[in-house]
């Protein structure tokens, strides 16, 4: 007896791609979204890649939030698409976005600085959706709603679709539940990881998350979230900043296309 309500096996397993289709999709659709910080963009091979999950980790005050703010500002200002910014530490500030855009040399080159400042800022802010998230369940809720909106094609700003999802920082949301004897925390972390990768792949998003550092014994530090998280992001960068300066150093921990271990310096303009 054929049960017509159940989808056939062919529908359920998703589209099967040939190598040529994949290459075509990569060259046409999987663009690099620039962060606007030269050193970082060089290390990343152009910027944050669509379809990939990029992690930026580092000790406190090393520039992670600045990377997030710069990416959001530049992508919105260049009209590349809608940005969703999930903020866990009340660090997103519209005035900082304004300062970044006003100081950006990229826009000057593209002639986009000819608009009056407040109009430019308004159009940029319309492309950035900022939400505060303070616990892991709220994050699941937001991601679920995002999934539904993207499927119904409701997330756009006058025609441009969402291209960048930033979570600053995902480790603060996961810290209260991981560790200890109970495995639920780690399984929730892996659930979040899978949802983020699915969103990145199905809707051509670039996902940027920030992580913090924990001690690794003998005074050394390592990225938080443990061994299970290590395999999750496609690209991992470690930042550091010398006390009192605004020159930060980024090191590649993991990259799908390039060698690890390369470093670059970048300046956070004030």
């Amino acid at each position, binding site marked *: 007896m054929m049960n017509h309500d159940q989808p056939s096996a062919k529908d359920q397993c998703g589209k099967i791609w040939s190598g040529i289709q994949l290459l075509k999709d990569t060259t046409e659709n999987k663009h690099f979204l620039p962060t606007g910080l030269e050193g970082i963009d060089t290390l990343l091979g152009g910027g944050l890649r669509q379809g990939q999950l990029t992690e930026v980790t580092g000790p*406190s*005050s090393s520039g992670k939030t600045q990377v997030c703010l710069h990416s959001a500002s530049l992508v919105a200002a260049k009209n590349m698409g809608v940005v969703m910014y999930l903020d866990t530490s009340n660090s997103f500030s519209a005035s900082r976005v304004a300062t970044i855009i006003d100081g950006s040399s990229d826009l000057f080159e593209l002639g986009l600085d000819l608009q009056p400042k407040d109009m430019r800022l308004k159009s940029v802010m319309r492309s950035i959706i900022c939400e505060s998230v303070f616990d892991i369940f709220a994050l699941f809720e937001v991601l679920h709603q995002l999934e539904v909106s993207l499927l119904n094609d409701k997330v756009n700003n006058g025609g441009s679709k969402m291209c960048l999802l930033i979570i600053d920082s995902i480790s*603060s949301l996961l810290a209260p539940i991981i560790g200890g004897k109970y495995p639920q925390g780690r399984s929730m972390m892996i659930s979040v990881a899978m949802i983020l990768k699915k969103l990145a792949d199905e809707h051509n998003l670039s996902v940027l998350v920030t992580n913090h550092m924990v001690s690794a014994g003998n005074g050394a530090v390592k990225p938080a979230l443990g061994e299970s998280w290590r395999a999750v992001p496609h690209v991992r960068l470690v930042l550091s900043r010398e006390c009192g300066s605004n020159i930060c150093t980024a090191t590649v921990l993991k990259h799908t296309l390039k060698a690890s271990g390369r470093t670059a310096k970048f300046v956070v303009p004030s």
Partner: protein
Amino acid sequence: MLSEEQSQKHITTGSGDLNNILGGGIHCKEVTEIGGVPGVGKTQLGIQLAINVQIPVEYGGLGGKAVYIDTEGSFMVERVYQIAEGCISDILEHFPHSHEKSSFAQKQLQPEHFLADIYYFRVCSYTEQIAAINYLEKFLGEHKDVRIVIIDSVTFHFRQDFDDMALRTRVLSGLSLKLMKIAKAYNLAVVLLNQVTTKFAEGSFQLTLALGDSWSHSCTNRLILYWNGNDRYAYLDKSPSLPVASAPYAVTGKGVRDAGNSNHKRVRVT
């Protein structure tokens, strides 16, 4: 969002130089951590902020109330009275044409009123501290005019008697997320005072804020108070929109003021 930010008032610290590096003062909707060695003035600054938040709107302040959660018992009421008197005398000095302001506002400028608008909680263990913060949300729902919550000091009860470090990390990160949520939801400033500890790193002992690396990510801004010879300095260590900077300040009989005249400064006692 930008217009909301621009109309956001800041809570003055009492010292103009300090206000400048903080971008006008302590920001509402953000969690600011203030750390330093014993004796440098953290509690003084905490008390000063509890008074300054109450400066009436007619005189350029927020006209709000304060919640002071004391874990160490360092809240000396006589000193609070003294600081309130100092604040009032400065207001009247700054606004000499007081006959223009309503006489009601002037009558309200009594030290007793300032003391009455500080809600004081004394906690004696880490469980009480967690309970107090959980209760805070309900309390703030009933007292909507609170504009600052000060916790002095957030680390005290977590430094001793905690065997399970992983549990401590989980509890503290949960606490910090709750405080972030409260700051955003009730549009108030959260100020956390922290102690310092020594850390063995790179072959030498360094002074660093207590509670470890994971806690250092739990605030929006961080201010470190330190001694430079016989002068007190404040260093803005972490901020999403301001550059790192130092500024001197002084603790006088009237409270926290600019480090200009050295007549009334309280000297270092070591």
